[in-house]
């Protein structure tokens, strides 16, 4: 059974989530403070954490940072629309995705499934030499990309960017994360670079509308998540 840890200071939302997720076959544990959350993350050993950003004792960003210091557990942020900065901060600090309150159970479950899949993929990605995203396949070893079987010419940086997003297709990366991980430490604020590269990639992949590389305005980018893997 999949185990979920729910952290939110609102008692009634916690209760509704416990019942709703329990009815869909998840095992849940819940707590109302970040401190409890960090303890339960170890003892309950969940597969995924649902985290509210407005906790009374610690903000969400700090929670993500502390959890990441000892665990790679996927974190799905439950956020209110107005704390955009907090949301980006939490993603930067290692959260995997977010859902905006109020959300339906169907939406939440879909996000939970995606986040769990990333976690699984992350653990066996290294052996794979070819990633497939829709019609695009990326040969990590040969550094070759094909779309519909036809070669796509990419520069080194373009390839790095695409493969970085593809390794965690469906995971939402912030501008800051991408710049830091692909361009290197010292980068972070140069979102215009990123926009240029993303546009070039989209053109070369025949994806002018951003169906494969999705834009999350003000936050970052996400690669289309498909279950096909080879």
């Amino acid at each position, binding site marked *: 059974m999949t185990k979920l840890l729910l952290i939110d*200071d*609102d*008692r*009634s*939302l916690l*209760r*509704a*989530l416990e*019942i*709703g997720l*329990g*009815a*869909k*076959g998840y095992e849940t544990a819940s707590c109302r403070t970040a401190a409890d959350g960090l303890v339960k993350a170890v003892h309950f050993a969940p597969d995924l954490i649902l985290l509210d950003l*407005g*906790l*009374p*004792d610690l*903000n969400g960003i700090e929670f993500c940072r502390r959890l990441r210091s000892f665990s790679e557990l996927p974190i799905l942020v*439950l956020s*209110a*629309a*107005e*704390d955009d900065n907090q949301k980006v901060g939490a993603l930067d600090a290692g959260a995997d995705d977010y859902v905006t*309150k*109020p*959300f*339906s*159970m*169907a939406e*939440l479950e879909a996000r939970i499934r995606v986040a769990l899949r990333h976690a699984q993929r992350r653990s066996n990605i290294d052996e794979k030499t070819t990633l497939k995203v829709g019609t695009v396949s990326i040969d990590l070893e040969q550094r070759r990309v094909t779309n519909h079987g036809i070669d796509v010419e990419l520069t080194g940086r373009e390839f790095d960017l695409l493969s970085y997003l593809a390794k965690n297709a469906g995971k939402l990366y912030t501008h800051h994360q991408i710049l830091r991980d692909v361009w290197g430490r010292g980068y972070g604020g140069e979102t215009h670079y990123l926009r240029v590269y993303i546009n070039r990639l989209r053109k070369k992949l025949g994806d002018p509308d951003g169906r494969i590389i999705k834009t999350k305005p003000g936050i970052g980018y996400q690669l289309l998540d498909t279950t096909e893997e080879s």
Partner: protein
Amino acid sequence: MVNGRKWREESRGVALAAVSFLIVSSVMFFFRAHISVATAALVLVIPVILGVMIGGFSVGLIGIVLGFIIYDFVFIPPYYTLSVGQTQNWIALGVFVVVVILVSRVVASLKDARSLAIEREHNARRLFELSKLLLGEKELPELLETVANSVQLTFGFEAVVLLLQGPEKLEVGASAGQLFSSEELSQLIPEIGAPATLYRTSEDGAQTLFSLALSAAGRPMGLLVMRGSHAQSPDAQLLSTFANHAALAIEQAQLKQQALQAKLLEETDRWRRALLGSVSHDLRTPLASIKTAASSLSDLSADLDPNQRLELLDTISVQTDRLTRLVVNLLDMSRIEAGVLTPRPSTVEVAELIEEGIDALGDDQARQQIQVRSCPHEIFVSADHILISQVIANLLENAVRYSPKEKPITIDVSSTSSKVLLSVSDWGPGVPADQRERVFDLFHKDSESGHTGLGLSIAKAFVSAHGEDITLTNSESGGAQFTFSLPLVPIDEYGYIDDQAAPDR
């Protein structure tokens, strides 16, 4: 005032002249046989000069007449007649008059020069004193008052009014002394661009109006209008110098006020945005539970037992109440802000108020936490029961939010001879002493949880509307304890409510 002083000086001069005439003439009277007519004339000059020194030239004229009579009567033979006799005596008398007139003139002009110098020095000192008043950080209204008052006192006007350039016409900024009638004021307002000099506007019997335009760096600022007596001629130079200083100071104060207003607006704007953010957080929180519960219930594949279904339905109902309360709070807040909140007090039993407050809270689960520790029956207060039950509900909601689930929230009631004190205590973390006032602030936001202080600021506004007070202390358990008072309605020994004694509001 100026005339009074002059008249006083003159009469003193005349008195001195008269006394000295009496003394010198009596002394000379005994030696009349031994002194010449000319010597007597010489000696009689002294009293006139003394008089002039004190009283000015006009005293000299009186002195001449007086001296002339004494001289002619007492010292020019034939004695005690007005006849002069010898030609020689005519000459002596003529010389006496001419000498006295000339000397009086000289002495009088010396005296005038001296008093002018004194007045100049005095004026310079007054200007310095006046200008000193304009220095320092004064608010605009205070500065205007200062200007009007000091002009009135220093220059001795009956009334002074300071008109400031408003958006369309001149408006009264400050006034001192006797009031101007509105008719007078309407006459005073001149066309724009009046000359920046002192001029007399009208003469009305013994009274004269003076006006002086105020301008700073060429920009017209307003008009200074003064009413004084007809004969008064204020030191125009001193007044206009002071007016210039005042105009600059006023301009500076106006600029400062504008800057302050701009800053205030900016601050209000910032807080409004913060408030909007947290209100939307407060709205979204119950919505999240409702949506979650409702979408679980409508999911056919979800495996829910009947109890869980009931619990989810209950969540929807409770959270809807919470939303409703928030909306009511927001409406109340806008009523408070619009200033249309007037409590309608009636005599109510405290126990009933508490019950209504707990009912208004709506949250069944939280209701089990609440303990009414001490509420004697038959205690009546004068209160608007709708507003006060809302106050109790808001205090309880706040307590529920911060108190651990397993600890009780207590309501205590105590009474003095005229007041009833209601308090709500929780087992939460409490509030540090230095932040207790801010908790009631409309824009106060719990920085960690993002909850607004809307409920508490409404509670405070409602209690204040009753003319009562609400305070926050720490309870014995270390949690927060909110206490507010209401006026007690006494009951007489037969158990009847003494309505007459109820404080009327």
